[in-house]
């Protein structure tokens, strides 16, 4: 398994020790030594590099590398594989994604939910089903204290009275069970009027608002059924909500496709609207879609991430600073190794519930009957599907086992893998390239921001 990964960002050599999570900044000498060490003897390393560096310095660099190795900070052994299998037997559900409306007031071209109905009837979830889903979550969450419900769709604001009822019921039931319940909601912001915004601000732990960026880019994909664009309707609703939200959690999120490969401009457009928490991500689609990201687009996409990186760094500490979700990494209090192996927990810790109460591994699989896991009213889960998702961890995915990014990306999105490669145990290779770039940018941004502050 790959033990060490190194890369240079903005002239700074960065070295990651994959299994321990250690991160180092080196000089060019040590960076070069690591091209040869530990495969070659000290003498061979010195011989290979003596035309570039002083021999005594090379020997000194080698000693420092060996010191870190002895201290478990470099070339450390990956010991998590056995632990993963043991821990994964813990079958506890901690989050549900409630599809409260399989209907939408937009008709986005790239919608994985087939314009809101997931290839089924246009349906709204009823009160009995939503309340049963809350009970199901509380029953299945075992000793877990923190539980979550995400209101999703289609467009959840099309069934807003149900959202409010479920929040009240969920709070009551969680209190009785001695649990902490958090609610989130994802909306296209079309129906986000002032009263709705006030309610969401008060009751939602996190709110995700969709906007793709520049007006022409947003309106090409995110349009009403009559084909007119949504930008003019949603942008003020989103800005109004964000101003009210202040420091509490929200994300304005967009999707980029091969029709706007210059997506850094869309991120910056959103940032220049005064929005601070931004996530713009590649479209999830099959390769047959004309807007899907392809191998030949990758150079452009990676270059766009570099542009965004520079902009994030330049704006850090200024009033124009913004946070790009995919460049955020928690180096200091990040998730434990176990969490990093299990990733999103779809099919086990996290399930999606349709308006009829049907259970799927996550929202991306809803409507595909091969992934139907059960129904909240009978409470039993398909153990084979659950096990398939549980076992699709980084040590069982061929391309992940030896990947340096395995403990940062956790194997990626199951739906991406399934849609692009036909199996949740295979990889969406285009996605892997983009994800590795984002992880490098995230780690480098953290380091360079810190170095910039130290210089002041």
């Amino acid at each position: 398994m790959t033990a060490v990964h190194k890369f240079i960002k903005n002239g700074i050599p960065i070295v990651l020790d994959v299994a321990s999570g250690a991160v180092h900044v080196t000089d060019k000498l040590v960076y070069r030594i690591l091209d040869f060490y530990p495969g070659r003897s000290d003498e061979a390393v010195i011989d290979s590099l003596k035309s570039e560096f002083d021999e005594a310095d090379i020997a000194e660099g080698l000693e420092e590398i060996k010191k870190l190795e002895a201290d478990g900070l470099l070339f450390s052994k990956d010991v998590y594989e056995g632990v993963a299998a043991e821990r994964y037997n813990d079958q506890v559900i901690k989050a549900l994604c409630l599809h409260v409306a399989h209907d939408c007031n937009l008709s986005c071209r790239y919608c994985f939910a087939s314009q809101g109905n997931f290839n089924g009837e246009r349906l709204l979830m009823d009160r009995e089903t939503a309340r049963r889903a809350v009970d199901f979550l509380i029953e299945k969450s075992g000793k877990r204290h923190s539980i979550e419900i995400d209101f999703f769709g289609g467009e959840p604001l099309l069934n807003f009275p149900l959202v409010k009822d479920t929040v009240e019921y969920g709070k009551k039931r969680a209190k009785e069970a001695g649990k902490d319940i958090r609610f989130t909601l994802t909306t296209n912001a079309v129906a986000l009027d002032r009263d709705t915004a006030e309610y969401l601000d008060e009751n939602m732990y996190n709110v995700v608002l969709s906007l793709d960026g520049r007006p022409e880019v947003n309106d090409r994909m995110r349009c009403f059924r009559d084909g007119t664009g949504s930008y003019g309707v949603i942008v003020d609703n989103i800005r109004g909500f964000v101003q009210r939200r202040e420091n509490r959690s929200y994300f304005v999120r967009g999707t980029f496709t091969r029709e706007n490969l210059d997506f850094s401009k869309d991120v910056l457009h959103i940032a220049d609207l005064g929005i601070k928490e931004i996530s713009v991500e590649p479209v999830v689609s099959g390769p047959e879609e004309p807007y899907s990201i392809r191998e030949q687009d990758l150079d452009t996409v990676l270059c766009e991430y570099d542009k965004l990186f520079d902009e994030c760094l330049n704006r850090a500490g200024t009033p124009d600073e913004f946070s790009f979700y995919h460049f955020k990494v928690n180096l200091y209090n990040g998730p434990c190794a176990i969490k990093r192996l299990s990733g999103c927990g779809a099919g086990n810790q996290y399930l999606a519930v349709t308006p009829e109460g049907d259970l799927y591994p996550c929202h991306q699989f809803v409507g595909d009957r091969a992934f139907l896991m059960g129904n909240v009213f009978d409470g039993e889960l398909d153990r084979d599907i659950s096990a398939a998702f549980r076992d699709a961890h980084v040590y069982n995915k061929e391309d992940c086992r030896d990947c340096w990014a395995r403990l940062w990306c956790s194997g990626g999105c199951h739906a991406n893998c399934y849609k692009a490669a036909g199996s949740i145990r295979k990889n969406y290779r285009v996605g892997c390239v983009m994800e590795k770039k984002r992880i490098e940018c995230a780690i480098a941004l953290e380091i360079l921001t810190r170095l910039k502050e130290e210089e002041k």
Partner: protein
Amino acid sequence: MKHIKTIIGAVLKDTAKTGGCGECQSSCQSACKTSCTVGNQECEKGKSKSS
């Protein structure tokens, strides 16, 4: 050290034994609905210790 500056130490090493409580937020839900970036999540245990 003259040639290497350690920014973050071996933060993952002990978490195989101490981690896995599952109290952390589910990854995909917390922000976007795809492209999970688990590495940016926060450990609830660490949060309660530091608060």
